């Protein structure tokens, strides 16, 4: 047991030195471009500070798990897991692990540390199964934010086109 502890201690020391060069990363999600000053260095996964989670994908870390509205994905926070670890008192949340659980698509440029996430499938069911129009929030040409939900009570003809 003692040996295991000391190995764990050694790993922690190595991770502290890693944490000193904690990498910056850029996350793309919908229209947003989120610059993260610190993420936990990892070859394949994106670990962010819990307070950055909401900036990245709207999820909020609560005692019951990572939650988006009524949806909560359970996350153990009193011990390390694939989704959540604590290093030197600093908790880290694994955003890509959450994405995998939710079957949310993403594409990464590892060299540049840029993570591009697709939409969260569970939020798409009312569209795919129910034919409800997905809400959106985009900047209008007049500089005002346009939300589809602001047009409730009107019929909307939504048209796409392109200059090319």
């Amino acid at each position, binding site marked *: 047991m003692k040996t295991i502890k000391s190995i764990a201690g050694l790993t922690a020391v190595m991770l502290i030195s890693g944490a000193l060069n904690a990498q910056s990363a850029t996350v793309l999600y919908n229209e947003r471009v989120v610059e993260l000053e610190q993420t936990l260095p990892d070859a394949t996964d994106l670990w962010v500070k819990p307070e950055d989670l909401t900036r990245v994908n709207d999820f909020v870390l609560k005692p019951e798990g990572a939650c988006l509205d009524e949806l909560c994905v359970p996350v153990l926070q009193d011990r390390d897991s694939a989704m959540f670890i604590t290093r030197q008192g600093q908790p880290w949340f694994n955003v890509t692990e959450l994405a995998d659980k939710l079957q949310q698509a993403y*594409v990464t440029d590892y060299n540049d540390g840029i993570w591009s996430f*697709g939409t969260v499938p569970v939020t798409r069911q009312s569209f795919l199964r129910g034919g409800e129009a997905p809400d959106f929030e*985009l900047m*209008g040409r007049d500089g005002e934010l346009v939300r*589809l939900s602001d047009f409730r009570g009107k019929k*909307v*003809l939504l048209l796409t086109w392109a200059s090319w």
Partner: protein
Amino acid sequence: MPVWQSIYEELKSENFEIISVAQDTGGEEAAGHIFDDANVSYTAIIDVNHQISSLYNLVNVPSGVWIDEQGSIMRINEGTYAKEHMNGAWGTNDYVPIVRDWVAKGADSEHVWDRSKVRESIIQRTPEAERAQPAFRLGGYYFTNDNDEKAEQYWTMAQELDPTSWNYLRQDLQYEEGGSAGPEWRARREQIEGAGGAYYAPLEIKNN
């Protein structure tokens, strides 16, 4: 576009709005003047990340979606020109009258689809096509940051992941020799149409 502006003028007092969204990575510079030339007063958006196509599972432009007062889709995924184009090669003059009919009669319009027809008309994506969305978004990020090499890399990836998207293909071709309606686009079209596929999902219009 001038046609849509006149339709809007005609119907806007009847609780009707047009939201017109340019799918243009080139942004204001590429698409802004087209809105300006038509003097549009309806809601105009330049959507550099093609987010509307991404959200509504659309693969070509122009495309139209009818959304009712409660936010339910009434028609979707149609190649919606306001009038005949290129001597009738595309579009029809029969589309605007059905929009008018819908605005007047709402759910009682015979041109409104039922739930199952709406569901069937939404394009289903493969898991690969789902990944095409963030790949295209990443390419767009590099494009706006003047890294053309990486933009090309991820745009190509998006096209490979979702070969059904004309938007991904043509947005990319726009920045290459030959342009968005050049030989490569024509060859792809002929290939798909030759195999019995359609460039646009066919417009279904009931005749009275």
